[in-house]
């Protein structure tokens, strides 16, 4: 009975993820029937040119996997940050990784790169490096001796983020030719097609989220407050450092290939907390599945709402995510939902 109760949320979340994943593969601007899907499967590896096969394996499948990975990365990091900072407004971008990555990406876009592998990867590389560098700056600014006060991190994060965002806007105005590209990137969505981004994201995703998953218990203890947690034997500063490193790596890698997708990292932890309670040992793994499912759903909507035009998925996550979040909030009928 106990096992059944613990397993049920996982089953439901996986069901949602499978449904969203299947929709994401089947829905697109070119209608593919189930037969096309089978034809595409059978043509795999053969030399026969098959349009359905190309669309499935070179466009849809890698995109579905990338979007799922990004959703999981953002929701997992968001959950960890909300626990770490004990702040309901925390999201993976709280201490500057997104604004830093945005600055790097837009700066890279304003330069004419040659048509080489390095030139083609300039934007994601610059976004990744500049995202991590920004977090490092915030970290250095917030540190007081050996201690790393949460409020310092948040304040330094806000200030450095504003600075980076202002620089980004300035660059966008200067390089007006690239304005649309920059804007589309900043609003989020899969910017590169094919398997390359999936493979590039994979190591950071596995390592980063792997580390985060081991901190469920530590995050539970942290909810008593820094001092209490320290007295209970938790090395608070070390935990904080590890979570920041892991979440930053994962988020920076995700943002590099998917742009700045808002809201997923903020609402998934809240929705899950309302549904299954505040235990981070379950919140963390469930947030990965939930984030992947939510972002896949939003991506499907982004593709069909104004088809054949594609909306930036960041717009959809906020447009569809905010009402959904409010609905869950109202339904829970809790006076104080943050607990």
């Amino acid at each position, binding site marked *: 009975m106990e096992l059944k109760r613990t397993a049920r949320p996982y089953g439901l979340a996986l069901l949602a993820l499978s449904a969203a994943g299947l929709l994401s593969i089947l829905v697109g601007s070119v209608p593919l029937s189930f037969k096309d899907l089978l034809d595409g499967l059978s043509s795999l590896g053969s030399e026969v*040119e098959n349009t359905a096969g190309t*669309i499935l394996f070179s*466009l*849809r499948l890698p995109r579905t996997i990338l979007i799922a990975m990004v959703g999981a990365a953002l929701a997992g990091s968001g959950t960890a940050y909300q626990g770490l900072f004990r702040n309901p407004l925390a999201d993976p971008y709280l201490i500057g990784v997104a604004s830093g990555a945005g600055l790097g990406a837009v700066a890279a876009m304003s330069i004419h790169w040659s048509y080489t592998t390095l030139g083609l990867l300039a934007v994601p590389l610059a976004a990744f490096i500049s995202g991590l560098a920004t977090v490092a700056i915030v970290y250095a600014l917030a540190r007081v001796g050996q201690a790393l006060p949460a409020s310092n991190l948040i304040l330094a994060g806000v200030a450095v983020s504003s600075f980076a965002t202002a620089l980004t806007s300035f660059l966008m105005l200067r390089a*007006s030719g690239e304005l649309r590209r920059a804007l589309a990137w900043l609003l989020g969505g899969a910017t590169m097609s094919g398997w390359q981004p999936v493979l590039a994201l994979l190591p950071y995703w596995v390592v980063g989220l792997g580390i985060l998953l081991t901190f469920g218990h530590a995050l539970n203890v942290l909810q008593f407050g820094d001092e209490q947690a320290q007295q209970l034997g938790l090395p608070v500063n070390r935990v904080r450092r590890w979570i920041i490193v892991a979440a930053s790596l994962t988020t920076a890698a995700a943002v590099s290939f998917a742009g700045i997708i808002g809201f997923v990292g903020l609402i998934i932890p809240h929705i899950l907390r309302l549904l299954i309670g505040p235990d981070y040992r379950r919140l963390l793994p469930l947030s990965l599945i939930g984030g992947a499912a939510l972002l896949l759903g939003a991506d499907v909507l982004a593709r069909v709402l104004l088809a054949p035009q594609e909306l930036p998925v960041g717009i959809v996550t906020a447009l569809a995510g905010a009402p959904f979040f409010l609905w869950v909030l109202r339904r829970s009928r809790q006076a104080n939902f943050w607990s």
Partner: protein
Amino acid sequence: MKRLSQLLLVLTLLATVLVACTSGAQPPSPSPITLTDGLGREVTLAAPAQLIVSLAPSNTEILYAVGAGDQVVGRDEFSNYPEAAAAIQSVGGSMGDYNFEQIVSLKPDLVLAAEINTPEQVKALEDLGVTVYYLKNPTNIPGMFANLEIVGQLTGHSAEVTALVDSLRQRVTGVEAKVANVTVTPRVFYELDGTDPAKPWTAGAGTFIDQLISMAGGENVAASLDGSWGQLSQEALLVANPDIILLGDAAYGTTAEQVSARPGWDAIQAVKTGQIVPFNDDTVSRPGPRLVDALEELVRILHPELK
């Protein structure tokens, strides 16, 4: 050693004979077309492209102008000229986002990309097995002619292009001859977007707008603008005091009446004399053959005295 070289010689001879035989036996096939594109990529077509997707309005206009309109099977969202292009399947392109699924399903033998497309998009299409030619923006009229010739080669319309370029070149020469004797060069302000009348967007040096205004015997008051596109402050505009205001944003509903009513603008010469003229921005913002139309239109506006 000697034996080895002898063997090589025999082999080479054999190979030559074989090649000669096979090439003689086969019917003459069209020779492949190999061109280097704007990204420095070598693009090879087995034969002139017959199923073409255009990713930019300028490319669509060029394709139709060189006589390859019937070979276009897909176009970007914004391709609205010539009218026939509207009937062609759109492959997206708003927000710089193209529908790759649609492009692949059209099975094109050539995708004609432009500078509004990113190298990443070119790479992605290439990875999907699509042949892409990236047509770089020309920086001057001869460069535009060169682009026409490239597209002519890619589509098998070189003969038409020669005639087209000849006639365009004659029209440009005609304008130059007419303008050579003008004594006054009116100062021109070209408005791209005047949503904020305190600092309207305009075009500076390096743009076709600037070049064509000069060629038409005028002076672009924003020529010294830092960067190709920028916002000119209203103060600078008052000091420059243009004789003519061209409304490139007329298509978005800006009218001469609105411009005259803007606070402070009544001090500008062009507003006093009512020289505020709507202008078809597509002809100057798309680097295609209509640049010559734009040039002639500019001469008509700037120098109505020339017949």
